[in-house]
């Protein structure tokens, strides 16, 4: 225990690699939130009236709401009037016509993060829609996707170019009244990604967005909407890293997925926002609403997430299984160390016949980290022969951290089969001893065991992401062997 604990601790104290600030001019709205700010955001983005009206409805509803307190996370009250709700990098002229025109300062930031925006993008075959704070600054591979009729663009662009699609689907999965943060997002969302895959099209590459929060005191409120029409397939990657700051930053995104008949959407996230320093100072509050609707029969939505960052993570990517035979999946690795808190999980709502869902959640806690799985499996009377399997495992490293499991299971149909299993343990000294005996150092042994623990989830990630996720976990756990 002793020397391995020290190694663990040394690893756990390694610095945040991505903590730097990009120095570019920002076009920021002064702090505060009222109807005028919303009108200003909407005007800056040249939005149609219906969207402004929708934002205002959400804002008026938000005023009647109270911040939720049920999650097992603790933080000082947020002053929503002290936040600035819009920040866009200033552009020269009408914006970049190609990648070369993108602000070099911004490009360097992405390069430090190792994001394949330019050459790497081509080599890796990834189309990157990079969101720098709130406005999409570069979009690649658009032409190639356009040939297939695929729409992959920033949300604001989608509002301008494809208003009929946006209007048809926006808010149908996460209505603006859904919850406190989703309502706030609906009122002030800045930008995000929009994807539409036409009937029968299989998207030939992984679509990817890297989000960054940069300006100090800017809440970032992305809105992502992905629609897979009948028989379509898409795999979408979302990756996040943020620079080091001392003040807590709020991040309240909304992601909506819609899968029609026979469509499949695979949504993968690696979240590595700034978690705060070793004393728990600073860090991102990540209060996100993600939900997918399996609207058509035989549709499938699969969420995979690797959550390693943020001071607080409050996130429950969910599936509403309405279509007959539809399938929902949730694979998650959540890691908390130092003073990080995570309250994450999923909801699987079985409505249609023969719907199936799988939940695999792996929580790792080190240092003073608090990690909670919270999930709901609900089988409605109409969900004949529904099937759910849930597995939640927790790994504890150190005696100051906590692992919690709060599953809610509500079954209203006797033909349903619902199973839930959870376990909590630490890396045993026997396992470490076994590895050391075979010449594997304590640190490598822990990395090996942790990777084995997470394997079921990592194998669901697209290849490049899986490698990155594995490296990220190793990096995060440097020094926390126990």
């Amino acid at each position, binding site marked *: 225990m002793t020397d391995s604990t020290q190694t663990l601790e040394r690893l756990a104290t390694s610095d945040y690699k991505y903590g730097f600030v990009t120095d570019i001019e920002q076009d920021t709205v002064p702090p505060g939130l009222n109807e005028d700010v919303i009108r200003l955001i909407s005007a800056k983005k040249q939005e149609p009236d219906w969207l402004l009206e929708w934002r205002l409805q959400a804002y008026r509803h938000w005023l009647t709401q109270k911040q939720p307190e049920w999650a097992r996370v603790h933080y000082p009250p947020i002053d929503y009037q002290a936040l600035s709700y819009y920040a866009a990098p200033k552009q020269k002229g009408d914006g970049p016509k190609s990648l070369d025109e993108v602000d070099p300062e911004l490009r360097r930031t992405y390069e430090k993060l190792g994001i394949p925006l330019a050459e790497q993008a081509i080599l890796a075959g990834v189309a990157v829609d990079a969101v720098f704070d709130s406005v999409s600054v570069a979009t690649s591979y658009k032409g190639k996707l356009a040939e297939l009729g695929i729409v992959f663009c920033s949300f604001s662009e989608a509002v301008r170019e494809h208003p009929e699609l946006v209007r048809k689907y926006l808010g149908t999965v996460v209505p603006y009244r859904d919850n406190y943060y989703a309502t706030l997002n609906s009122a002030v969302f800045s930008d995000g990604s929009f994807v539409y895959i036409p009937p029968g099209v299989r998207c030939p590459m992984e679509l990817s967005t890297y989000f960054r929060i940069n300006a100090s005191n800017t809440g970032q409120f992305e809105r992502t909407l992905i629609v897979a029409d009948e028989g379509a397939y898409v795999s979408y990657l979302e990756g996040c890293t943020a620079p080091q700051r001392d003040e807590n930053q709020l991040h309240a995104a909304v992601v909506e997925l819609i899968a029609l008949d026979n469509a499949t959407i695979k949504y993968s996230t690696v979240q590595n926002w700034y978690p705060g320093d070793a004393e728990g100072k600073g860090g991102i509050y990540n209060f996100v609403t993600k939900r997918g609707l399996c609207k058509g029969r035989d549709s499938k939505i699969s969420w995979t997430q690797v959550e390693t960052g943020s001071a607080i993570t409050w996130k429950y990517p969910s599936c509403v299984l309405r279509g007959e035979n539809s399938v929902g999946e949730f694979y998650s690795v959540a890691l908390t160390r130092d003073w990080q808190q995570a309250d994450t999980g999923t909801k699987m709502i079985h409505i249609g016949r023969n719907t199936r869902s799988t939940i695999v959640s792996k929580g790792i806690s080190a240092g003073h980290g608090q990690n909670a799985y919270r999930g709901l499996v609900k089988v409605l009377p109409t969900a004949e022969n529904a099937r759910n399997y849930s597995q939640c495992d927790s790994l504890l490293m150190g005696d*100051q951290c*906590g692992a919690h499991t*709060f599953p809610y299971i509500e*079954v*209203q*149909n*006797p033909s349903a089969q619902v199973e839930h299993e959870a*376990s*909590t*343990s630490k890396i045993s000294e026997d396992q470490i001893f076994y590895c050391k005996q075979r010449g594997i150092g304590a640190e490598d042994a822990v990395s090996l065991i942790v990777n084995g623990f997470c394997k079921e989830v990592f194998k669901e990630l697209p290849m490049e992401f899986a490698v990155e996720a594995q490296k990220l976990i190793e990096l995060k756990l440097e020094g926390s062997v126990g």
Partner: protein
Amino acid sequence: MSNIAPVVQNPFRQRFAAFTADRREPDAIARLRREGLDRFASLGWPTRQQEAWRLADLGALAQIDLQRPADALVDAGTLPTLDLPTHQLTFVNGRFAPGLSRLRELPNQALIASLGQALLTHPERIEPHLERLPGLGQHPFAALNTAFWEDGAFVYLPRATVAETPVHLLFHIAGDDIAVYPRLLLVLEDGAQATVVVEYRGKGRYLNAPVAELQLGAGAVLHYHQIQEESSPAFHLGGVRVRQDRDSQANLHLVSFGGQLARTDLEVLLDGEGASCVLNGLILANDQQMGDYHVRVEHAQPRGSSEQLFKSVLDGKARSVFDGMIHVRPHAQKTDARQTNRNLLLSKQAQANANPRLEILADDVKCGHGSTTGFLNPDALFYLRARGIPAAQARTLLVHAFANDSLNRIQLTPLRERLASSLAARLALGSIEEP
């Protein structure tokens, strides 16, 4: 508080004045009662907006103008018996019925009596223990019990005493629109051992809100059985709290058959190294019944172990709730905790809710939980039918096997057998069909 309608709060305050006016009790007890009433006032009548009462519908109960019960006569022949010698205490409408009670010879210094009597003869043994256990602080009906209990049972076993004869406590209620608040205080000093059977039953539409406090000294062993067979229109909202010292062992069996809404909040505090508990619960519900167990096991010291098995069999429009929490405190290392919940749905309208929860703040622990909900295993049905057993009979067989798995853990043979036949009779009422 803001969410209590004045109509609900005021009658309890008024009744409290009338209730306490003619009671002659030590000041300490009177103070506890007032604190209980204040706690109820601050908690308020539970609403579905509160997480702990989210699934309970207390609307029908709130409509009843609950009165203090009158005395009732009960025919001794209708009371359940255990086919073996017991120390029996019977309470009718919350009041001790000496004529229906019988005590056998007790070990030296031991005391089994009604709480009211014991308070007159041995207040020094009661006051240090009554209302001393943490937990149930948020339970409004436990607070009401503390304010309004009339009588109950007191079981005290001194150091290293083994009570060979089981203690049988019968709480019978008869009447409509009445509220009864029975109380049980059990104190096992270091190394003492006891077997206790508590039975709740009655006739009419009433509220039974019992509270049991069980204290186990170092190395004490307790076998506790709580059989709830209230009348079908009755409400049972009870609380059981347990504190265990070093190396003590508690085996708790809870069986819930009756009532339209039957809920027990059970809290076990493992407060000494190496303490262990086994919690075993069964709900059988039909028609509009709702059975509910809220369980919290608090591992406060190292090397404790706890095992929970909670099962429910639901037919008709019945609902069940299992809300179980294992909480492991930061220095409760080497804890071994296991929680299992299994629900069997026999009809399309039945509904099972399971919230098996873990909160773990120590790293060197083994904790796990599992929950399953569904109809009978089709493979098992097929297996039986392949051997010539008709479908209906095969289903009955499997349902019995599922429920008896819980009852078979009861070591007290006469009780186990009586419950098994009661179970069979209840299951026979509804035919088990393919839902």
